[in-house]
């Protein structure tokens, strides 16, 4: 588990008081300064931090309220983890409607960041599957919000970065599955235009599509990678692998980042060539398919004591290819490289939140070991490219985007700010608005 009061990128550091909440009927605790809900600390940057204030640790509000196995409607407290939902519902033939790349997020966190997954082109964001939630404000008021009831509060709170109040409980609509297995096809591609062709071709018939990009290669190999498309497998596939039972963990934080230009190039080359054929078909358990990194506990430690920075951006459809190419070239030339670069085409299903990040176009997620000014300068250059293309950067993964770009990426920020609870604030929000 992450150290409480830290974000997953372990950057920046923040000093805050932590108050654990475990009773959803209780009022908010009285504090001198501002408060911010904190779930399981899987946001990468400072959107889950509140330097100088208080974090309301909601992870212990982790009770299920009801689950209807006929309709797949699940009601639970906001601190319940996606992993706990999966453990409960998969054996009963249901699955999360949308899941990010880790199952160790809370329901409250998934709402606050309106998370997305490999099925965005089919299902949209997580917020679209939230039927209702209860919002507790510092004035003691409780609102049940849904697309019909208090729709303005619903839209502000979904993707609202925890600033509109505390979500105490939520009701979500799950989706049916026949079992825990996925049938996937894995393709090697050699450049970005091949990726876009593959992705376009797959969007109709495959619920989940995503690509990994080799970020260390330059020149002719630039933009090569591995594309995966998958569907939930039928009830009794020929091959029924179990969930991986062995759980590794990174036992300690090494004194320096283990991710450096040499290890990066080696990993990327090996990963690209891990399969011989250019196409392979596999049946796999959902865990390695959706959550490859969850198998390694505390993997964020490999970046050393200075932590790392995630960068996820989206570029609109017309400008996607060119923008991604420019980004890749800029990264390759900087020598900073990214251990994992993930590329995915969002669909055009509208996101329900005022500040939701997902929008039509291609999205690229990268992580960089924090090497100080050099890393920050590179990310500033990436911002210039994304902003010029009319794109946006994901707040849940950000620790450094300039205020002017935030306001450009999220033009609704001003109308959103009327919904912020006067007692609530975050390091992120102060950084991008003050």
């Amino acid at each position, binding site marked *: 588990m992450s150290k409480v009061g830290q974000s997953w990128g372990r950057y920046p550091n923040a000093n805050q008081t932590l108050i654990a909440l*475990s*009773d959803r009927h209780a009022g908010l605790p009285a504090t001198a300064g501002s408060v911010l809900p904190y779930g399981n600390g899987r946001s990468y940057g400072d959107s889950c931090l509140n330097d100088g204030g208080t974090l309301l640790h909601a992870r212990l509000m982790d009770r299920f309220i*009801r689950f209807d196995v006929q309709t797949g409607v699940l009601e639970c407290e906001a601190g319940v983890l996606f992993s706990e939902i999966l453990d409960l519902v998969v054996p009963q033939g249901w699955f999360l409607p949308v899941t990010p790349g880790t199952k160790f997020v809370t329901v409250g966190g998934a709402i606050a960041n309106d998370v997305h997954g490999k099925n965005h082109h089919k299902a949209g964001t997580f917020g679209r599957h939230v039927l209702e939630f209860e919002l507790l404000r510092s004035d003691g008021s409780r609102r049940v919000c849904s697309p019909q009831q208090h729709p303005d509060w619903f839209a502000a709170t979904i993707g609202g970065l925890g600033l509109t109040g505390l979500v105490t409980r939520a009701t979500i609509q799950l989706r049916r599955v026949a079992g825990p297995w996925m049938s996937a096809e894995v393709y090697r591609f050699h450049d970005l235009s091949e990726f876009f062709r593959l992705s376009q071709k797959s969007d109709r018939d495959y619920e989940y599509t995503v690509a990994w990009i080799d970020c260390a290669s330059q020149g002719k190999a630039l933009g090569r990678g591995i594309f995966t498309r998958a569907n939930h497998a039928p009830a009794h596939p020929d091959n029924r692998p179990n969930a991986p039972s062995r759980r590794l963990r990174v036992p300690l934080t090494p004194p320096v980042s283990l991710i450096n230009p040499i290890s990066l190039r080696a990993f990327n080359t090996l990963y690209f060539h891990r399969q011989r054929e250019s196409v392979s078909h596999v049946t796999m358990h959902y865990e390695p398919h959706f959550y490859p990194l969850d198998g390694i506990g505390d993997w964020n430690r490999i970046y050393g004591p200075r932590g790392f920075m995630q960068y996820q951006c989206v570029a609109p459809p017309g400008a996607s290819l060119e923008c991604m190419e420019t980004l890749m070239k800029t990264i390759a030339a900087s020598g900073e490289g990214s251990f994992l670069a993930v590329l995915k085409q969002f669909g055009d299903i509208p996101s329900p939140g005022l500040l939701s990040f997902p929008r039509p176009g291609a999205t690229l997620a990268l992580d960089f070991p924090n090497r100080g000014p050099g890393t920050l300068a590179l990310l500033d250059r990436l911002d210039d490219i994304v902003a010029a293309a009319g794109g946006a950067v994901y707040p849940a993964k950000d620790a450094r985007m300039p205020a002017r770009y935030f306001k450009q990426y999220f033009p609704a920020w001003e109308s959103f700010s009327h919904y912020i609870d006067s007692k609530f604030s975050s390091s992120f929000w102060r950084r991008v608005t003050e």
Partner: protein
Amino acid sequence: MQKVVIIGATSAIAESTARLYAARGAQLFLVARNVARLEDIAADLRTRGAQEVFQAPLDVNDVLAHAGLIERIWASLGQVDVFLVAHGTLPDQSQCEASAELALKEFATNGTSTIALLTTVAPRFEMQRKGVIAVISSVAGDRGRQSNYLYGSAKAAVTTFASGLRQRMTKLGVNVLTIKPGFVDTPMTRDFKKGALWAKPDDIARGIARAADRGRSVAYLPWFWLPIMLIIRHVPEFVFKRIKL
């Protein structure tokens, strides 16, 4: 299907343990002071697979109410496979030093109320001739330390009582299990600075269920408290009285 009773069911360790039994499809009978929180926990356990969840309110210090409660439990469940006594508080030692009244009240909550409950429930198990009576005591009961000897002495009473009860019940096929958790990260210990020896309620809960399944007598949880307490118990008094613990 197991039938499990939990006294003090809103405590973090008890709730985690109840979830394990719920996932096995058990029938549960939950007892606690706070009825509203019991309601939430019961709904959660039903969702997690408990076949049925009964609830009853009880202030453990209301000893006169114990017999009626036990009556109600057996009327609802018919028999009991695991009877887990998990209630408790963590008294402020320095306040207990300043007030005999508070000291006795805390001793009652953590010590005598458990003795009363076990006394009342024992005849039921004598008749049943099977099942597990599990009591959460504490490593703090193994030796009095200046930092929390009021709590420690109440738990020592529980440990000693359970040991005698075990001798009485073993020949009847009833197991008495004494659980001795070390430091556990729960709302009860929220104000403590946490170090490497601290365990999560989930880990303790798994230990409790395992020890009950295997018919163990005494379970230190996590296991490393067994050697630690072995050493602490054997430090000679002339040394022990001079150290800070």
